[in-house]
């Protein structure tokens, strides 16, 4: 990828993300209001325009920035300063490997809608995600506050624990796709398989029976690995420390946990980090399990080839690109909504329940999934050989 397109991409996704984060505050408010059967986020107004409460994010930002930034005595000043940034940065960086579209040719240029199409894309996200732990745990320690310390201990234990399940739960998916590269995963998920193909294979119905060719299923990760989808989602949400996994904050127990000593925009950064991570989680799940930017049963190449006679090759590519981004966004929004649904419908787990879920349920299930997937792959290979 040439340097200019890299910058274009960086600009694009930064814009999207930074726009998303404030909007998320509104989404959260609206969602909770809806679920709790009340009217939410409708007071802020500019000249009487309330715009469904969309002004609220703006008000939030102003409030955050203008608030006094307190630094407690006895705090480790440097760490107290950098911790919020360490917390936010990984979330933003990990978006770099998530593709929100394929590669398109227009007017002689290659446009790839993925900033860094790395060979070890998912691993990169895991690695960067593991750094995020520091942002939270140092925050609690740096503030010289015992509630914060407790929060730090909780957060470090929780995040280390769930990283294990996080990594292992998707091993089965890697085994099936044979790649860690997210763009490749997207392309592979365009393919379909015939649900009843095995009937023909074993000779239980005649070769070339028409209805067998009609009933096809897209090879989405969700279809191939339904259980890991939910395990991965759970582990990611636990990593994100939002309800119901918000024991490190636990305002009823340890006041606000690790960010107890933060105010103003530093506090805002933690909030932002969480919301951005909600988006990243949705994007990652979309790329890995929901076919990424592609439509089911309709490969991108065929869209372009249908449209080329109508509008010319360049414009066909542009149209496909726009379509891809929209498809991706819709899937992401659905998943964001799903996460909000969970966040507002579940009470907080007790701390030991969190640990039990990670070590005693997710980890064994993930390991079992690896073994079962391996067996399945062997069987399929054996049968189709």
């Amino acid at each position, binding site marked *: 990828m040439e340097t200019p397109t890299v910058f274009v991409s960086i600009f694009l996704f930064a814009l999207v993300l930074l726009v998303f984060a404030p909007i998320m505050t509104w989404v959260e408010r609206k969602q909770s209001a809806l679920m709790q059967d009340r009217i939410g986020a409708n007071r802020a107004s500019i000249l009487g325009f309330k715009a469904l409460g969309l002004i609220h994010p703006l008000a939030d930002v102003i409030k955050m920035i203008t608030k006094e930034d307190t630094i407690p005595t006895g705090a480790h000043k440097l*760490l107290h300063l950098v911790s919020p940034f360490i917390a936010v940065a990984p979330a933003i960086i990990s978006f770099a490997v998530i593709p929100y579209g394929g590669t398109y040719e227009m007017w002689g240029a290659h446009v790839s809608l993925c900033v860094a199409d790395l*060979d*070890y894309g998912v*691993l*990169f996200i*895991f*690695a*960067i*995600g*593991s*750094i995020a*732990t*520091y942002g939270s*745990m*140092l925050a609690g*320690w740096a503030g010289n506050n015992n509630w914060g*310390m407790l929060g*730090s*201990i909780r957060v*470090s*234990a929780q*995040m*280390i624990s769930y*990283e294990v399940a996080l*990594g292992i739960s998707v091993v089965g998916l890697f085994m099936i796709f044979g790649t*860690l590269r997210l763009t490749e995963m997207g392309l592979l998920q365009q393919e379909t398989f015939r649900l009843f193909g095995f009937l023909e294979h074993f000779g239980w119905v005649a070769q070339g029976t028409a209805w067998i060719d009609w009933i096809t299923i897209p090879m989405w990760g969700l279809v191939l690995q339904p259980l890991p989808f939910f395990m991965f989602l759970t582990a990611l949400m636990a990593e994100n420390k939002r309800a119901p996994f918000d024991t490190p904050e636990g305002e009823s127990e340890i006041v606000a946990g690790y960010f107890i000593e933060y105010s103003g925009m530093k506090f805002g950064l933690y909030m932002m980090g969480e919301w951005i991570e909600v988006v990243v989680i949705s994007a990652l799940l979309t790329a890995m399990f929901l076919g990424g930017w592609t439509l089911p049963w309709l490969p991108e190449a065929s869209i372009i080839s249908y449209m080329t006679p109508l509008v010319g090759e360049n414009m066909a590519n542009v149209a496909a690109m726009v379509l891809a981004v929209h498809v991706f966004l819709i899937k992401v929004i659905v998943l964001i909504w799903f996460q909000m649904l969970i966040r507002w419908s579940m009470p907080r787990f007790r701390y030991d329940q969190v640990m039990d879920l990670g070590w005693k349920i997710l980890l064994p299930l993930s390991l079992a999934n690896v073994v079962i997937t391996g067996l399945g792959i062997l069987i399929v290979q054996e049968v189709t050989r």
Partner: protein
Amino acid sequence: MRTALFWVFSISAVASALGVVGNLRSPINSALSLVVSMLALAGLYVLLEAQFVGLIQVMVYAGAIVVLFLFVIMLLNLRGSGTRGAELQPIMKAIGSLVVFGSTLWLVRTLAADRAPWPDVDAGFGTTRAMGEALYTDYVLSVQVAGVLLLAGIVAAVVLAKKKVD
């Protein structure tokens, strides 16, 4: 670009390693220096075409091991040294280790007297695929043994850290 990266990474790795040892105030500071050192080393690994190992370095060392260190330090609520007397050992040991230090550098110098330039490696070198294939074919036994070791480690850690001996 690579040359510059090498210098950036190696200098920060060595400097933060010194920070680990030289920071007498608090083990937390040492741990943070260690993270920086680990991350810089990961960068060096990637420069050496060992992307997979570099990522694992970040995940395992920076993401888990040092977090564990921090976790333990916080759990034991140790702010400051927690040791009695002077933090540093008697000067004799320092002198001794400096002797070793010097002799090791000398060894490296002698060994590196005539080094061939970098050979070309194929595109797959150090990628996840290459490592996975090697690990699960030629070194599958080592992987199994490592798995058993991990299991033993888990059990040992749980038994050791258990509060009550029942």
